[in-house]
């Protein structure tokens, strides 16, 4: 098992290298640069800026420099937020995004799974139809509709919660963003779980358990649910990576100081180092969570072995 983890982490290195290289050059192919949009920038000042950030060097040298910096854990300075390094921005923003994302994910897994199991057990009856309708609504209504609606009803009309802001991480400030993030996930998990559970309940070994008179709890939880967990696990890995690295819409609408906005802002502003930093962080999250998924898989299903 340990050997397998080591092997997976080793194979992650060429993957990361490939991602970094590809994004580095793709980014440079896009027209413009970090300082090309600033108005009233005299050519001298601009040349000066580019020299400071070594953007006047040949591309291959810039690439090698970036790689060398990256190997030392240095993501470089942000071009558009010159008072901060990329690492600074992540140090502040990432914990916020992770808090929101993790809360939303846990909520989605618990609530979504529960709804899915209930729907599966009452297949083609009222409760099932309600869950399916809810799940369809949840996954079709976009977050940029849910978030303002939430603000309108609960903040502006009822005044139960603040409209936006982080409030130093106060609970009332988190409810809106977490719910907005979680709602589509609850819908997806509920649908996945419903399908997996229906499939699982049809298995021959469930018939065996019933024939042995093992009773509802053992049949549903011990035998059916465990098998139904597998598709949920494989969905949750990539979903976790996406949720924990922040959401543009939610962070913008609720004015949350997370890292989700950076990707879009930085890409629009050609903030090369910040885009690269975001890419590396997301890639690492994806790789790590995929590894966790595979390890969990082996834990749930003894037929999966990594030796």
């Amino acid at each position, binding site marked *: 098992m340990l050997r397998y983890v080591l092997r997976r982490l080793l194979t992650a290195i060429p993957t990361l290298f490939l991602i970094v290289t590809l994004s580095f050059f793709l980014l440079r192919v896009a027209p413009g640069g970090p300082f090309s949009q600033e108005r009233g920038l005299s050519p001298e000042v601009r040349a000066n800026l580019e020299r400071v950030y070594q953007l006047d060097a040949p591309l291959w040298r810039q690439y090698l420099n970036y790689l060398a910096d990256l190997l030392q854990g240095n993501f470089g300075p942000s071009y558009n937020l010159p008072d901060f390094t990329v690492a600074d921005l992540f140090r502040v923003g990432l914990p916020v995004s992770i808090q929101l994302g993790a809360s939303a994910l846990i909520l989605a897994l618990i609530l979504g799974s529960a709804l899915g199991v209930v729907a599966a057990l009452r297949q083609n009856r009222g409760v099932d139809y309600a869950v399916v309708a809810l799940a369809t609504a949840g996954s079709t209504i976009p977050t940029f509709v849910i978030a303002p609606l939430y603000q309108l009803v609960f903040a502006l009309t009822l005044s139960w919660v603040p409209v936006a802001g982080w409030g130093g991480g106060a609970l009332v400030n988190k409810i809106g963003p977490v719910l907005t993030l979680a709602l589509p996930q609850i819908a997806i998990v509920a649908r996945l779980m419903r399908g997996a559970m229906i499939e699982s309940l049809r298995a*021959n070994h469930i018939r065996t358990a019933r*024939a*042995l*008179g093992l009773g509802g709890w*053992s049949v549903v939880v011990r035998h059916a649910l465990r098998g139904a967990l597998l598709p949920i696990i494989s969905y949750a890995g990539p979903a976790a990576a996406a949720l924990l690295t922040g959401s543009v819409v939610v962070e913008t609408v609720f004015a949350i100081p997370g890292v989700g906005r950076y990707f879009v802002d930085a890409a629009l502003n050609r903030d090369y180092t910040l885009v690269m930093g975001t890419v590396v962080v997301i890639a690492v999250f994806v790789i790590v969570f995929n590894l966790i998924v595979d390890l969990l898989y082996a834990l749930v299903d003894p037929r999966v072995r990594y030796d």
Partner: protein
Amino acid sequence: MTAETTRGTTALLELAGLDVRFDTPDGEVHAVRGIDLALKSGETLAVVGESGSGKSQAMMAAMGLLAKNGRAGGSVRYRGREILGLSSRALDEVRGAKIAMIFQEPMTSLDPLYTIGSQLAEPLVRHKRLSGRAARTRAVELLTLVGIPEPERRLRAYPHELSGGQRQRVMIAMALAAEPEVLIADEPTTALDVTVQAQIIELLRSLQRRFGMGIVFITHDLGLARHFADRVAVMRYGKVVEEGPAGEVLTRPAHDYTRMLLAAEPTGTKPPPPGDAPVVLEARGVDVTFQIGGGLFAGPSLEIHAVDKVSLTLRQGQTIGIVGESGSGKSTLGRALIRLVDARGDISLFGHSTGLIDAAGLRALRRQAQIVFQDPYGSLSPRMTVGEIIAEGLRVHEPGLDARARERAVIAALEDVTLDPALRNRYPHEFSGGQRQRIAIARALILKPRVLVLDEPTSALDRSVQKGIVELLRRLQKEHGLSYLFISHDLSVVRALSDWIMVMRHGQLVEAGPTEEVYRAPAADYTRALIAAAYGLDGTAPDARMA
């Protein structure tokens, strides 16, 4: 009838007017139409019938295990107490505890995610109120009882680490855990190799002698019913058409259907072709190995020797039967002979060595050497019409043919396998298993091959349907001068169809010779065991054989 059957006088399990219906999108299906059956303690009642006769669903209804769209009516009494329509909570006091059931599919009937020990402990804790430790001790005893070697170690094994036969033994152990009085066994040996099948039947017998259980034995196999059961009930279209002592019903059947079932057991022999018939296929030292695993980080790969230096000569008009149990390499050999899998050794088709030939030449040879696969449903594309499926080979081998000529060929091929050509625009799922097998044969026949590799073509079919296929194959062989390589685990079909037989085990040839000689006087111990295990062939008393 044995002494055991007379011991109990009141019925243990009694079905009266049992009726099962299913609501389907195509309307209501009336699967069981008011049957009456009774089982006494210590007795074995075989419920015999073909697929769709309702024999399994009747027992599923009795156990409260019908699918959600199923409804049961009538009465099911256990020791005089009505159990049909009980809540599942109340039913769970009977299921597993008093009446246990084992199923056909040993590979999937155990939960793949839990160890054998943990699954065995469940009914013990549930019905016998044993503690975890006591359940473990009892589980070891149960595994010993059903003949699992090294039971202590096996407790920690997962189902996928056991063979099919061992899994069925574990299933039996689980069913017996709470010492039930009735065991319902739904085709418990159908998915198993014949030698394993004999062992499981012997195990059930000895357990029955020991615990005096009543057994309901659901089977399509008349031979098994004859040797294992005290009484037989024959079912058709959801009704019991005949019931009585096994010896009587199966030797002097009163009902036409029973007579038809008995007549459907494969009979007849195949005379060998003339000694000077031309050789169509010759193979010397065929050797097939598979690599398992391996790769950049995965360590060394494992080599499996699937076929180990097997030779054969097939003449025109000859049928060679290749028999063996699962994993014997018989299917791989069939595929290797027509180069569907790569093999070492010399194989020549119609005098041309297939090792030396180019792709175009190989294609021309393949046209004359076709294969018919085992699973007639899985091997027909569900999204093509039967006409398209049958014509597909012509598109490859005779691209010049126009649509009308292809159509004519399809009609001729369908008529050849006695299917109505008007059905050619339908899809495979609209046909029965036997019809689909005919379609698969028509697909091969349309290319006018000289050699047909038939890989278990009758295994998925009921005996009466199988009989039709056997007759079809005989007629086609005579009319077209075909040579067959008939691969099967079913010794009685092989005996009826082939004039030469090859017995394979672990990739090696165990024995080969003229069919009747091998069946009459098998030289190898393994062949003898195979023939002994396949019921109804040698005519000796089952008890003598099982001893």
